[in-house]
């Protein structure tokens, strides 16, 4: 059976690729240094494939049909779509076997995820995936979530989906070592008069709750309150899904930097699922 040997969440502001040097050096090095550490950890632990959850930014779906969750089942997916994002546009290998297993398992668990045999991946997944594997060869199962277009899945439901996702990965016998990753958040505003604002107080509060396991206060937040830390804050659903996938494992914040040139509270949090220190 597969083991989740690496679990983490990272912000995915596209400027971490497209305007990397716009960030103050210390902040940039702290944030990206945390992702360097994660990449080294993935190598040490022999990660064979990854599952990445992120927001759907009107890239694959539109108002005719907007699933709350869509699992990428394809042999390959394409990305990044943004012409201005300085990451090579390539076919990224999927992992149909694990993806199909996740879809079937979560359906059996009471969820109704959509599926796609060809997803186009934007900065939401690609920025974080690229930092994990610069060669972009690591098999990737993308899961896009609706974190933008109301009505949205309640955050508690996203957490519960993550629990089912974690069970699915752990019951898959086609791989041994899997990473599960949430990409998005923390506080930020886009397409609004407040673009560029960051709610540092919220970001630190949220990270504290992931670190001490006190998620109840997060999981009962209505969307109207979540939006007080920005419309981009709905992307907490990706973080909460990972928290659910590895519960009761707590998170350690590897980096938090309110990077104003990147208009986002940029964080990396690691859920240590290998407390015995075991390696591949």
């Amino acid at each position, binding site marked *: 059976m597969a083991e989740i040997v690496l679990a983490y969440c990272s912000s995915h502001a596209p400027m971490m690729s497209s305007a990397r040097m716009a960030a103050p050096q210390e902040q940039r090095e702290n944030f990206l240094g945390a992702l360097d550490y994660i990449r080294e950890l993935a190598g040490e632990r022999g990660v064979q494939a990854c599952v990445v959850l992120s927001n759907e*930014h*009107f890239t694959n779906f*539109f*108002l005719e049909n907007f699933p709350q969750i869509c699992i990428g089942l394809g042999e390959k997916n*394409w990305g*990044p*779509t*943004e*012409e*201005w994002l300085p990451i090579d*546009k390539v*076919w990224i290998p999927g992992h149909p076997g694990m993806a199909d297993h996740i879809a079937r398992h979560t359906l059996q668990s009471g969820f109704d995820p959509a599926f796609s045999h*060809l997803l*186009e991946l934007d900065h939401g997944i690609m920025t974080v995936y690229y930092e994990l594997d610069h060669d972009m060869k690591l098999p990737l199962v993308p899961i896009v979530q609706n974190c*933008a*277009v109301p009505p949205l899945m309640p955050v508690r439901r996203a957490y519960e989906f993550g629990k089912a996702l974690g069970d699915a990965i752990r019951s898959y016998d086609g791989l041994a070592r899997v990473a599960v990753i949430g990409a998005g958040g923390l506080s930020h505003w*886009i*397409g*609004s*008069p*407040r*673009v*560029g604002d960051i709610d540092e*107080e*919220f970001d630190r*509060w*949220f990270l504290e709750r992931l670190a001490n396991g006190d998620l109840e*206060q997060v999981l009962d*937040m209505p969307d*109207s*309150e979540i939006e*007080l*830390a920005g*419309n981009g804050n709905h992307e907490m659903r990706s973080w909460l899904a990972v928290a659910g996938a590895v519960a009761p494992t707590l998170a350690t914040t590897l980096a938090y930097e309110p990077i104003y040139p990147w*208009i986002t509270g940029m964080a990396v949090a690691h859920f240590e699922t290998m407390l015995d220190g075991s390696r591949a």
Partner: protein
Amino acid sequence: MSLYQLHRCVYDWVRAGEVASGAAGGAGRESFDSSGYELTDDEKKAFETKDIAAMYQLGLHEVLLNRFARAAGFARDDYRKLLEPFAKPEERRGRWQR
């Protein structure tokens, strides 16, 4: 219906310039034809002049507005200045605010 049409028009225009995997997208924005969309005169004008403030006032979804602005060449600092006049004071407080 019209607001949907505006969204559809903007979405198709944004996607036309992106690097898509197949023939369905990436045809280029230069040759994009908006005449087939049922837009009001205000919507048509806002789209054709890339009027970010007007798009916001017309109710374009903020995620799509962000992508539209980026594709149209506006930096965030620029479009924030355009949108700032529409900011509303926020009196609500989140549970994290002491």
